[in-house]
């Protein structure tokens, strides 16, 4: 695991030096603006507006980073041939892949944690002291992070066998399809044959169910998230990401570099 750690820390350093974390400035400005504006226009629902807006921003910014940087993690190294010298070291290709994944997840963790601090600061300006229910936000942030890790794994899988542009399209396509996985499973349409329904149900189980990770509505209204859901989502994200990364490693380990 030493090699994985070495690649991961370097990937994190790359993200920092390439100013990926500058998005935090945008988030901070958004939260400050929202806190000022919400205080003036929404009486009584300031808290839920701030929470919804903040969590949405954390999710969207995170998805943007996970997809675009996730796809570039492998493809950029192949295009620029920085990978050549590295793979001539005693490093397995799967170690490189896992290290890259770990490095971006590390970056997203720091980024998401910083945004969560910004969200609490904005919340504090419209309401203080904070209440116990406000800490449920952390659960929502944690689930967003799990979702982002899964997106990074998918982005890496696609970038292992196709062009960066197609990999971005596939990842975003799968993300949006995954948001409707639950609907596909429970769909009751009169016009569909039982076989088609079965097929849809099968597909819905294969798709990553991203809606599982969305508890924004629950925490925005100060309600708690059941612990079982948190455990289930954690297990689901780990298992799904592991399968996706194993697939990516299988493809990448036999890939001829240019």
């Amino acid at each position, binding site marked *: 695991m*030493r090699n994985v750690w070495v690649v991961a820390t370097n990937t994190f*350093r790359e993200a920092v*030096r*390439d100013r990926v974390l500058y998005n935090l400035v945008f988030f901070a400005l958004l939260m400050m603006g929202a806190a000022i504006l919400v205080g003036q226009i929404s009486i009584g629902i300031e808290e839920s507006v701030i929470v919804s807006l903040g969590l949405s921003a954390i999710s969207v910014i995170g998805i943007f980073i996970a997809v675009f940087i996730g796809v570039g993690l492998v493809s950029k190294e192949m295009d620029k041939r920085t990978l*050549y010298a590295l793979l*001539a070291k005693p*490093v397995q290709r799967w170690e490189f892949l896992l290290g890259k994944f770990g490095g971006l997840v590390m970056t997203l963790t720091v980024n998401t944690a910083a945004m969560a601090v910004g969200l609490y600061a904005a919340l504090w300006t419209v309401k203080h002291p904070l209440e116990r229910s406000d800490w449920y936000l952390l659960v929502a942030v944690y689930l967003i992070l799990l979702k982002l890790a899964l997106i990074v794994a998918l982005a890496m899988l696609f970038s292992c066998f196709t062009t960066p542009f197609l990999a971005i399209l596939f990842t975003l396509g799968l993300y949006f399809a995954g948001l409707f996985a639950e609907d596909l499973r429970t769909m009751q349409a009169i016009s569909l044959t039982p076989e088609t329904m079965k097929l849809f149900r099968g597909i819905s189980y294969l798709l990553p169910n991203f809606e599982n990770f969305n508890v924004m509505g629950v925490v925005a209204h100060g309600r708690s998230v059941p612990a079982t859901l948190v455990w289930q989502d954690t297990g689901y994200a780990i298992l799904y990401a592991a399968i996706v990364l194993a697939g990516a490693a299988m493809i990448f380990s036999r890939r001829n*570099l240019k």
Partner: protein
Amino acid sequence: MPSVAIEIENLSKEYPFGFLHLRKRRSLENLTMQVQAGDVFGFLGPNGAGKSTTIKLLMRLIFPTSGTARILGKSIEDVSMHQDIGYLPEQPYFYDYLTAAELLDYFARFHGLRESDRRERVQRILKRVGLDTAKKIQLRKYSKGMLQRAGLAQAILHDPQVVVLDEPMSGLDPLGRREVRDIILGLKKEGRTVLFSTHILSDAEMLCDRVGVIVGGKLRGVGTPGEMVGIQTQGMEILFELDGSAKKPALLEKAAKTGERYRVQLPEAELYNALDQLKEAGARILSVAQIKPTLEEFFMNLVDADRAQANAVEVSGR
């Protein structure tokens, strides 16, 4: 250490092409050769001959269609063999957000070196490749030559037994080329095996114990530079200057004049007679040298033969 450092057996590589990847282009055909431990081996060939393909196969950057290879007795499939191998890619490009010192430290960590050891090695190697004054500059600000040196540094950082260099002189000015030559000779002196590809034949003649010539994906010959071109002397060449007032020797008719100097080529048997004539005429002899076919001539003959063969196949196929 085994007496054979690199063994390649029937290594072939085909690339699929066309819309459905159904057609195949062969870049390397049944390559079989050995590099002895401690040798500097030059891998020669024109662009697209298969040199880089062979090196990439050895470094497992691409995978062979058929055949095997071993380095220091270990299969190229075995990642642990890279503990004892250094590799410089062709036109190297590294993480441009790192400094040279950070890059070397990063690579050294894969070899399990401790921090104090890493620091000492990085300093030593940067000095050896002439980058010690630029070690804190990010690689995005490096020139091509400096990147080449950084690449060379990472290749020899961990004291590998076998060093594989893909076009190490490419992009370097004459001073840089000389420094790389010195490093290669230094590695040989330390008993390391060096395999390097090049299309600059003078470098190969100067550095290599043995060379292999590859053209059109096929190995056309392996041997010492002398063996490759033949040891037969084709004659002698005398370079001399003549005082204007001196008696003109008879051989002057055969000589070519460049500036104040004369150059004459003659059979070896006529050498002493010619020298006597020049002595009598009071000529100042600047040099007497054997005329031998160069590696370049040998190389060009192979390339021409290969092109002629390719044209013949094309014509008969029409």
